[in-house]
């Protein structure tokens, strides 16, 4: 498949935004249920939510560049009963709304206690909103992943690993970003974010490795025999019917050499996973190093997404093999 940069930016940016939101809520929960007295100001969560909101908005903006008729984009929310794409169109603004609500409540300090527990802890309004925010983020991860995972004519994508990897990579980038953000403000949760980020990088790498391994061993969904229905073992295309280009020859092929895909696969494994892991692990606590890790990881994850698309081999390509 042709990697469209609008979609590469959309999925990586909102992944990081969702991961950051989840990290913020995890940090709050960590401090609330913890035994220490440490806490963070509402401003920390508000600024963090704003950062996540910016990422989500940039992703949303990128997605509009994918549409040929963006003025009709509102219609895309109508078919949520059947279309994962439509569900994503609803979930993304919902997550943005939750980010505004979560950050806004923290900024305004509206933090009424909703429930009191026997151990002296209480469920505050911001924490409750935070839980809903996490659910919305997870729903958006599911929608984004399922857009690709439900395309059964691209075998490389038609797998539960697509959803798992989108989620894990989004979480990993969000937690590394949260660590950099927390370190800049000298917040107590820097170590929590960095440590969780390291675990998530390893998990995401494992998930991605499984999908790479799976893709290398896939059997094609169909053969030319079924595609044209000729009862022959040996069929080759003489001509696809035209010498020029068509939508089918542009949208479904990445147009780069197999070496490029191979190189970028190695590149994203190194830059998207190994390098940020090393930077976070070795430079723990240093804001500058953590921000460097954020940027390196983002470049790596962009490359990962490019490879994800390029490796998707659509069944229709059977019909477009040869010009004559």
């Amino acid at each position, binding site marked *: 498949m042709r990697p469209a940069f609008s979609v590469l930016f959309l999925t990586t940016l909102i992944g990081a935004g969702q991961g950051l939101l989840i990290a913020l809520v995890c940090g709050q929960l960590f401090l609330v249920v913890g035994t220490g007295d440490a806490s963070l100001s509402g401003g920390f969560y508000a600024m963090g939510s704003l950062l996540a909101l910016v990422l989500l908005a940039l992703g949303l903006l990128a997605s509009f560049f994918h*549409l*040929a008729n963006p003025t*009709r984009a509102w219609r*895309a929310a109508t078919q949520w009963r059947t279309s994962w794409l439509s569900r994503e169109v609803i979930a993304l603004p919902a997550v943005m709304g939750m980010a505004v609500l979560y950050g806004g409540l923290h900024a305004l300090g509206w933090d009424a206690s909703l429930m009191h527990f026997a151990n002296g802890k209480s469920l505050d309004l911001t924490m409750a909103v935070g839980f809903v925010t996490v659910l919305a983020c997870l729903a958006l991860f599911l929608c984004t992943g399922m857009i690709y995972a*439900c395309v059964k004519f691209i075998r490389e994508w038609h797998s539960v690993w697509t959803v798992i990897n989108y989620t894990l990579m989004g979480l990993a980038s969000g937690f590394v970003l949260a660590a950099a953000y927390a370190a800049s403000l000298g917040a107590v949760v820097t170590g929590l974010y960095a440590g969780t980020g390291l675990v998530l990088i390893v998990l995401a790498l494992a998930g991605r490795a499984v999908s790479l391994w799976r893709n290398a061993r896939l059997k094609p969904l169909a053969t030319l025999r079924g595609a044209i229905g000729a009862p022959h073992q040996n069929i080759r295309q003489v001509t*696809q019917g035209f010498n020029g280009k068509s*939508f089918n020859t542009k*949208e479904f092929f990445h147009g780069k050499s197999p070496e490029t895909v191979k190189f970028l696969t190695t590149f994203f494994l190194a830059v998207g996973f190994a390098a940020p892991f090393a930077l976070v692990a070795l430079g723990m606590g240093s804001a500058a190093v953590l921000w460097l890790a954020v940027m390196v990881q983002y470049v790596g994850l962009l490359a990962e997404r490019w490879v994800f698309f390029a490796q998707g081999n659509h069944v*229709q390509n059977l019909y477009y093999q040869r010009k*004559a």
Partner: protein
Amino acid sequence: MANEKQLALVIDLNVCVGCHACVTSCKEWNTSGWAGPLPDQDAYGKDPDGVFFNRVQTFECGTFPNTETVHFPKSCLHCEDPPCVPVCPTGASYKRESDGIVLVDYDKCIGCKYCSWNCPYGAREFDEVSGVMKKCTLCVDRITDETLPPDRRKPACVLACPPGARLFGDIKDPESEVSRAIRDNGGYQLMPEAGTNPANHYLPRRKTQSVVHEDQLQRADNPLSREAEPPKFGGPTIDDASQW
């Protein structure tokens, strides 16, 4: 989604000669009709690009010297379980309940191209000028046009096909021409493993053979006199006798 009526094409690969008349007539009709335009870019240049609803491809089957050439016209198959329809986020892609034609509402399409990812046949082609997805409409503006004589209410490709390889009709009507062709000539669907249940069917290539037995060459049933040497007459012929 079982329609009472399902219009479809039946394409006889044994008859198709790969002339592309269906391709050009389709483009001609549809670019100026309801579904149009079907724009081209750089049409007369080095690297032309453009939208077509119908393509004729050519395949070589078998191993040399026992090969055969199959010309294979390909357009939207108007699947009975169209995977492109439910994935559309705007509802622009739909299947008509009245006759099973799969269409795109160009006023609702946002041009996200997601439907094309969900078609295993590559039947949809994107119109970059209008920014909407386009596809074969079975010439819905022709076949429903009651100002045309009834025998002309057929898709442009069907009317254009010189050897008559393309049939058009309702495959749910067991007595229709297409149903009989499918039933009698081994009509099949493309890529059944995709689970799309295509409405369009193809009729397979058939080897046309006539068996000639040895005795048919011998003319054994003819009178021997016809095959034998002409009789030689030693005596006077009737000409000799008339010379006097």
